[in-house]
């Protein structure tokens, strides 16, 4: 389980980072359907790495740290990989939040680059609602093994 969920078992703060407005909506809709009595999700959104960094900083400053980030790879201004590199160099974000990369990047060498930044899971686009829900719950259960999931 991620750090922030320890302070409130029912609330999971999820940051969705994707430059596509539509994809953010799709991800959010899929995750909304996956809510249970045990876990209620609070959503935050960012269109690029720079915006996401601000959300992470502000949320942490308000003692409402983000638990899980769904992070796109290819984005203008600051890519998902650049954001990972940056936040993992900050003490506060070295371990948390848990990051689920959600990317069309299928090159295993490129994906492996992200492993060193403590990525919990990879989900390859296109994805299904079932895949998003299952990786989220695996991460919330502490199974952050950097495993790759894809729809067939």
């Amino acid at each position, binding site marked *: 389980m991620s750090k922030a969920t320890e302070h409130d078992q029912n609330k999971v703060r999820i940051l969705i980072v994707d*430059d*596509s407005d*539509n994809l953010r909506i*799709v991800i959010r809709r899929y995750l909304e359907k996956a809510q249970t009595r045990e876990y209620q999700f609070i959503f935050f959104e960012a269109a690029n790495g720079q915006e996401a960094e601000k959300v992470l900083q502000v949320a942490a400053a308000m003692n409402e740290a983000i638990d899980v980030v769904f992070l796109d790879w*290819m984005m203008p201004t600051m890519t998902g990989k650049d954001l990972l590199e940056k936040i993992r160099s900050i003490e506060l974000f070295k371990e948390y939040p848990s990051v689920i990369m959600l990317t*069309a990047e*299928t090159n295993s060498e490129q994906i492996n680059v992200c492993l060193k930044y403590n990525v919990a899971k990879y989900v390859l*686009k296109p994805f299904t609602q079932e895949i998003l829900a299952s990786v989220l719950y695996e991460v919330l259960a502490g199974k952050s093994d950097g495993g790759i999931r894809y729809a067939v």
Partner: protein
Amino acid sequence: MPFEFVNQNDYILVKLSGECLGGEKPGVGDVMTQVLNDTKIKLFIFQASECSTITGAFLREMTLGYRALKAVNGQVRFVGGIPAVVHQIVSNGLDRIFICKMSLKGALIDFGLAKQKDFDVNVINPFLNATIKVLKIQCFLEAKPGKPTMKKPTDPLLLGDVSGIISVVSETFNGSFAISLSEAIFCGISKNMLGEDCPAITEKNVDLVGELANMILGQAKVELGQLGYAVQMAIPSCVWGKDHKIKHFGGGTCVVLPFETEIGTFYSEVMTSNAAINQIMKKAG
């Protein structure tokens, strides 16, 4: 004999087979010189895909033929060799003379003989399969491919109302991919994905088609990788409006792939840049 010289009009194809040990009578270098003198063709391609062994002695005899070729500014390429064969060439310091290429196509491009036919049709299927997969999984839309057609690379007109375009960049293959949708299909896909009605294409929702292009390229990358094309990801762009136009990157061969769905026809375009390929191959050579 472990070698056969075949006149291909523009170049001589030397097919190597089995064990190329050297000491053959006549030797490979002697035949090479003879063929050069008889045909005046200065481009030789050694095809070694059927060759299991090549010795230093055989390579030395090849260099005799190369000397005659060099005197008339000819060139040699060596293609399809198994690693042990290529290693033998490199370890004998001959890789600068017998420049190794992965494929016959690569050698022909090097010689400037593949300008009109260097579009590798094999790159189409990865995009076709990826389009079907992405539409099915992400958009809940079954798409059946129709008959591909060629389009003039100078023709910028797309057949839909909205298009997502993304560059396709690799060490050996450059170009671009576009997916072009009618407004009806765009709105249908949007409804399927977002679960609410989409009355029209707008500035707010148009990025959806770019995201589709991005996902299709990502999926196509897997199959392209199996074909030896290590494609890089890129950021897509979107264009829309009646009779909208796009300019594919490069300006090479363009194939249009039609797809039938229950809500109409849409199109994908795959374009490869000949200029880019030639430039890259020259650099590699």
